[in-house]
């Protein structure tokens, strides 16, 4: 066969491969776009089904292996905690009785008690800096939008999307998450929010207020979305206000967001 025929065959082969690649590329791009444009309800159902068959088995394995591995260490810590909490509980029960007596004397309504639902983290958002997680409970388990989420360390965030068997939890790191907060030392109030770093900010604290590094910040219960008294973090640094009327206050979160495993949802609050 003459050489130029080899050349023609090679060229044809090259252009066919190139065309095939481009066709594949455009087909996949269209598929991604169609997926993106689907209604959220459909995307939620689709995600739930696919997660069950892909991540599901490995997540269960991870939870079980992690539980087995951690059981001795956690048992020791929990025993110590049970002892100290029993002592604290006795003291608190005494104080609660006294508080109830005083509330009755003053004619206040009694504070409602909350019910907690344990949940497990299924997967973490793919963004470089995670601001949401997916948990294994959904509508069928009684989860509702805006339910506050905590773990043993403190406030984690709130439920932002509820699917049938799973839900998305918006962490305190999410740019749209704001928590009314209070300094436990002097009851100075502010708003906790993230500005895209590993630490949080306590905003709206006027310059004349006395907030020091080391102060502990808790949820204030204002807005009724988050209950009062959930630990958010500790003041790390306080910067002078400069020209602003508010101080710049940096908080170290109480929760280690990179190691979220078991979390709890709080029921009985203002939820959609």
């Amino acid at each position: 066969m003459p050489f130029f025929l080899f050349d023609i065959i090679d060229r044809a082969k090259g252009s066919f491969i190139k065309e095939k690649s481009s066709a594949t590329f455009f087909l996949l791009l269209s598929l991604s776009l169609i997926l993106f444009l689907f209604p959220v309800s459909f995307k939620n159902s689709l995600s739930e089904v696919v997660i069950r068959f892909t991540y599901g088995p490995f997540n269960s394995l991870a939870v079980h292996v992690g539980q087995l591995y951690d059981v001795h260490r956690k048992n020791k810590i929990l025993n110590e905690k049970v002892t100290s909490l029993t002592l604290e509980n006795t003291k608190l029960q005494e104080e609660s009785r006294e508080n109830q007596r005083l509330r009755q004397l003053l004619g206040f309504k009694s504070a409602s008690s909350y019910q907690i639902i344990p949940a497990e983290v299924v997967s973490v958002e793919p963004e470089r800096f995670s601001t949401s997680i997916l948990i294994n409970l959904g509508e069928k388990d009684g989860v509702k939008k805006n339910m506050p989420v905590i773990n043993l360390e403190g406030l984690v965030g709130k439920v932002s999307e509820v699917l049938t068997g799973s839900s998305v939890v918006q962490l305190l790191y999410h740019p749209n998450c704001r928590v009314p907060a209070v300094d436990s030392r002097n009851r100075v109030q502010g708003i906790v929010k993230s500005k895209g770093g590993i630490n949080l900010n306590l905003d709206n604290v006027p310059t004349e207020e006395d907030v020091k590094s080391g102060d502990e910040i808790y949820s204030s219960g204002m807005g009724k979305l988050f209950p009062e008294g959930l630990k958010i973090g500790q003041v790390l640094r306080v910067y002078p206000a400069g020209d602003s009327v508010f101080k710049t206050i940096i908080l170290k979160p109480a929760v280690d967001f990179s190691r979220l495993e078991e979390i709890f949802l709080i029921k009985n609050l203002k939820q959609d």
Partner: protein
Amino acid sequence: MNLSLSKTAGMILLILIVVIYQSLFAGLVTIHQIRLDLPMLILVYIGLSRGPASGAIFGFLVGFLLDLASPSSLGLGAFIKTCLGYLVGSFKDNLYLENNLSKGAVIFFSLILNDLLYYFFSNGIKNLSYSVSVFLNYSLLSGLYTALVGLLILWLAQMRKAKEITI
């Protein structure tokens, strides 16, 4: 036929590795929220070794799997990673990639581009200062971390190859 079968099997295996990594190990290798982006590392490997079509297919599948964690933006990661897989794959024959440093640079810049596109499409100009802060604090360091791990894997693979040739 056998070659394409083995290629498909290889891709399924790599997808499985990504799922296992995301479920079991991603948290263990995260340092101060700086993540090792193994899916992107594999995407660059597939693109550079098999070309644009394979890069785009792997990018779509991995992007889709990662999107499952935030269902409201399902399709966005798949779209971005399909583009990146195709782009990296098109470097296969057009870029001098014998040098390990250039491979490291491709990994680093792929990650940066992935994050820039993700922030742009998911946040737009809303929360711009937040996106910039996350990009500067996490994306750059994650890119560096992943590129360094990629270079280490390459170096170990080359050492092993050199040893086999000597024997």
